[in-house]
C-alpha cells in the first residue's frame, strides 16, 4: 500500500475516531444516544414527529395525528433531507428516529471535516495541511451546534456538509466549464436546496456571482444559466411544495406581516442573536476563507463588497428599520453569518496587509502565513466562546433534567396529552404526544387564569388557559393533486381546558414557581397522583381527565 493510501486511511481514522469517540464517550459510548438531540426547540421536535409519521405511514405526506389536527395529505414542506434520511435509516436499522437524529448529526460532522479536507487538498495539494484546515473548520462548528442550541440546528449541519463538496464541483466548473462539470454542479446545488432552501439558494447565488466576478472572461453565460436551470430542475418538486408553503401560506394565514420585531439582533428570544461568541462561529470564518479566495483572485473589491453590503442590508439594516418579511429576516438569521463572511475576509485581508506594510521586519513574511495566524486565532476564540456556554440554562438542559424528560417519554403512552408548567420547549423530548405549554407572555389568556387557579378561584373560565401545542401552527400545503395544493391553517395557540391533559409536569420557575406549586397542590387535592419527583420537576397523573382536575 502506497504512502498516499496510508495518509487517507490515517485521515479517515483520525476524523472518525475523534468524532465518534469524542462525541459518544461522554454518553456512555452509545452511538445512537439521543442526548442531547432535540433539546429545547419545537422545530426539531416537529421534524422528529414528521419523520416518525413518514416511517409509520411509509409516506412523506401526512399530518401526524398527535398534532391533533388530523388533516391527511399534508405535504411535508420542511427540508426533506432531514426527514427522509432518518426515516430511511430507521426503516433499515430498526433504531428509533428519536435516537437517530443525533447519530446523523455526528455523521454529518465527520462529512463536513472530510469535505473540507478534500477541498483544501485540491487547493493546496498538501494532505496534512488540508487535514489541519479541515479540523479547524469543522470542530468549532460541531462544538457550536453540539448541544443543539439553536432552533434549526439540524439545518446547520446539513447545509454545512454541502458547502465544501459544492465548492469542489464549483472549482471544476470554473476551471473547465464542460457540460458534465456544469451538470454535476447543478445537480449537487439542487440537492443542496433540499437541506435548507433559503440558505442554499443564497449560497448558490453568491457562488455564481463569484464565478462572474472572478472568471467573467472565461465564463460562458449560457452555461452558467444552464447550471442554474439544472439546479432548479433537480430541486423543482420540492421547491414547488416549499413555494406553496411560503407564498400561498402567506395568503392563507394572513399573518406574515412585514417584519414584526426589529429586535432580531438584540432579543434573546431570537436565536442566534449576534454577539461576540457566536459572531465568530465557524460558519463565519469558513466563508471568510472563501472571501479571501475571492479577493486574492480578483484585485477589484467593488462587486463582492457591494454584494456583502446588500446581504448585510437585508439581514441587519432593514429589520432595524422595521422593514422586512418573515423569510427575509427571521429565517435568514442563519444566513447572517454567511453574508458577514466577505466582510470579515476583507477585514482580515486589510489587517494582514497593514501589519506587513507598517512593520518593516514583517514585510518578508508570506501573507498566507499571516492569514493562517488570523484564521487560527479566530478558531481558538470561537472554541473558547462555545466552550464558555453554560451547560445548564434556559436554552440547554443538564443531564439530570434530560433524564427527567426522557422518563416522561418512556413512561407515558403515545398520543397522551401532557401539560407542562414552566417547561421551555419541552416537546422536543416527547414526540408522538400532544404537548401543551402555557405562553407566559400573554397576560390575559395565560397569566390571569394561572393566578386565579393558584388562588383557588376555580371556574370553568379560569381552567381555560392559553396554551400552545407541538406541531405546525399556520399555513401548510395540503395535497389535492400531483402538483396542486390547497392551503390549510391551524391556530396552535388557543385557550384550552387544562383538564384535558393526561399528565401535568410542574417545574421550578423564578417568577411563577409558587403559582405552579399552588396549582399542583390543588391538582393533588383533586385526586391527581405524583408519579415522579426529582430535583427539577414533579410529574402528576391526572385521574380526573375531562372533569374537575383542579
Amino acid at each position, binding site marked *: 500500500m502506497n504512502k498516499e493510501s496510508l495518509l487517507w486511511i490515517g485521515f479517515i481514522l483520525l476524523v472518525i475516531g475523534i468524532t465518534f469517540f469524542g462525541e459518544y464517550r461522554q454518553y456512555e459510548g452509545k452511538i*445512537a444516544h439521543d442526548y442531547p438531540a432535540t433539546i429545547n426547540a419545537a422545530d426539531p421536535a416537529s421534524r422528529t414527529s414528521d419523520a416518525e409519521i413518514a416511517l409509520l405511514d411509509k409516506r*412523506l405526506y401526512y399530518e401526524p395525528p398527535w398534532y391533533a389536527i388530523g388533516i391527511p395529505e399534508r405535504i411535508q414542506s420542511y427540508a426533506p433531507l432531514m426527514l427522509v*434520511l432518518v*426515516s*430511511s435509516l430507521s426503516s433499515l436499522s430498526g433504531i428509533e428516529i428519536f435516537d437517530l437524529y443525533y447519530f446523523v448529526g455526528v455523521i454529518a460532522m465527520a462529512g463536513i471535516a472530510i469535505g473540507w479536507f478534500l477541498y483544501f487538498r485540491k487547493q493546496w495539494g498538501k494532505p496534512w495541511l488540508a487535514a489541519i484546515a479541515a479540523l479547524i473548520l469543522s470542530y468549532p462548528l460541531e462544538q457550536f451546534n453540539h448541544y443543539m442550541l439553536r432552533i434549526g440546528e439540524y439545518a446547520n449541519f446539513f447545509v454545512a456538509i454541502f458547502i465544501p463538496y459544492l465548492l469542489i464541483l464549483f472549482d471544476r466548473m470554473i476551471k473547465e466549464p464542460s457540460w458534465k462539470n456544469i451538470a454535476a454542479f447543478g445537480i*449537487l446545488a439542487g440537492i443542496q436546496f433540499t437541506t435548507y432552501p433559503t440558505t442554499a439558494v443564497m449560497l448558490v447565488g453568491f457562488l455564481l456571482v463569484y464565478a462572474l466576478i472572478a472568471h467573467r472572461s472565461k465564463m460562458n453565460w449560457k452555461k452558467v444559466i444552464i447550471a442554474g436551470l439544472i439546479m432548479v430542475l433537480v430541486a423543482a*418538486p420540492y421547491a414547488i411544495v416549499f413555494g406553496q408553503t411560503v407564498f400561498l401560506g402567506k395568503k392563507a394565514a394572513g399573518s406574515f406581516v412585514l417584519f414584526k420585531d426589529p429586535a432580531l439582533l438584540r432579543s434573546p428570544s431570537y436565536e442566534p442573536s449576534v454577539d461576540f461568541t457566536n459572531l465568530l462561529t465557524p460558519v463565519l470564518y469558513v466563508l471568510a476563507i472563501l472571501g479571501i479566495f475571492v479577493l486574492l483572485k480578483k484585485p477589484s473589491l467593488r462587486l463582492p463588497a457591494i454584494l456583502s453590503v446588500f446581504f448585510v442590508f437585508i439581514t441587519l439594516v432593514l429589520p432595524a428599520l422595521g422593514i422586512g418579511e418573515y423569510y427575509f429576516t427571521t429565517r435568514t438569521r442563519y444566513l447572517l453569518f454567511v453574508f458577514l463572511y466577505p466582510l470579515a475576509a476583507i477585514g482580515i485581508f486589510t489587517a494582514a496587509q497593514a501589519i506587513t506594510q507598517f512593520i518593516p521586519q514583517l514585510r518578508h513574511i508570506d501573507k498566507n502565513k499571516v492569514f493562517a495566524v488570523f484564521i487560527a486565532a479566530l478558531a481558538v476564540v470561537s472554541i473558547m466562546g462555545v466552550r464558555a456556554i453554560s451547560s445548564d440554562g434556559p436554552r440547554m438542559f443538564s443531564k439530570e433534567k434530560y433524564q427527567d424528560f426522557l422518563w416522561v417519554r418512556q413512561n407515558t403512552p403515545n398520543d397522551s396529552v401532557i401539560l407542562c408548567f414552566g417547561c421551555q420547549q419541552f416537546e422536543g423530548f416527547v414526540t408522538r404526544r400532544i404537548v401543551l405549554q402555557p405562553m407566559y407572555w400573554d397576560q390575559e389568556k395565560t397569566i390571569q387564569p394561572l393566578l386565579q387557579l393558584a388562588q383557588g378561584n376555580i371556574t370553568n373560565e379560569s381552567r381555560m388557559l392559553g396554551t400552545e401545542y407541538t406541531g405546525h401552527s399556520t399555513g401548510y400545503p395540503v395535497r389535492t393533486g400531483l402538483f396542486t395544493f390547497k392551503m390549510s391553517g391551524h391556530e396552535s395557540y388557543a385557550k384550552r381546558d387544562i383538564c384535558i391533559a393526561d399528565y401535568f409536569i410542574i417545574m421550578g420557575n423564578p417568577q411563577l414557581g409558587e403559582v405552579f406549586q399552588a396549582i399542583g397542590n390543588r391538582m393533588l387535592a383533586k385526586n391527581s397522583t405524583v408519579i415522579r419527583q426529582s430535583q427539577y420537576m414533579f410529574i402528576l397523573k391526572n385521574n380526573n381527565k375531562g372533569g374537575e382536575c383542579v
Partner: protein
Amino acid sequence: MNAEKISPTAVGQSFALRCFRIKENALVAVSFLVLFWIFTRSAGQAFSIWYSFLAVMFFPGLLFAKWALPDWSAWEQALFGSFVGFGAGPIIIYYLSYIGLHSIQPMYIIGVAVFSIAGIILLDRKPKSA
C-alpha cells in the same frame, strides 16, 4: 479529462486499472464497514445502522462521484461520494415518495443501493475515450 490517468490506447492496461479501481472502491466500502463495526461493537449498538448508511448514502454518492469526478482516485471518490450521498440517496427516495410510491421501505432503499452499485460497475466498465 481522464486521459492522463487511464490510457485510451492500452486496452488491457485500462481494463486492469478499471478492475483495480472497482476493487479500491470496494476496499473503501469494506474499510468503512470494518471501521464502523469496530466503533459499533465498542458502543454496543446495532450494526445494522451501518448497512443502512451504506445503502442509503454511500453507494448513490459513490455513483455520483465516479460520474462527476472521473479523474479522482478511488479513495477520493469514495470519500466524496459517501457524504455527498447524504443528499443523493434520500432525495431519490423523497421524489419516489412524492409521485406516490411508498418508498420509505427497505425494499425501495435497497433498490436504490443496488441501482447505484450497478451504475458504478457500468461506469467503470465503460471504455474511456481520449
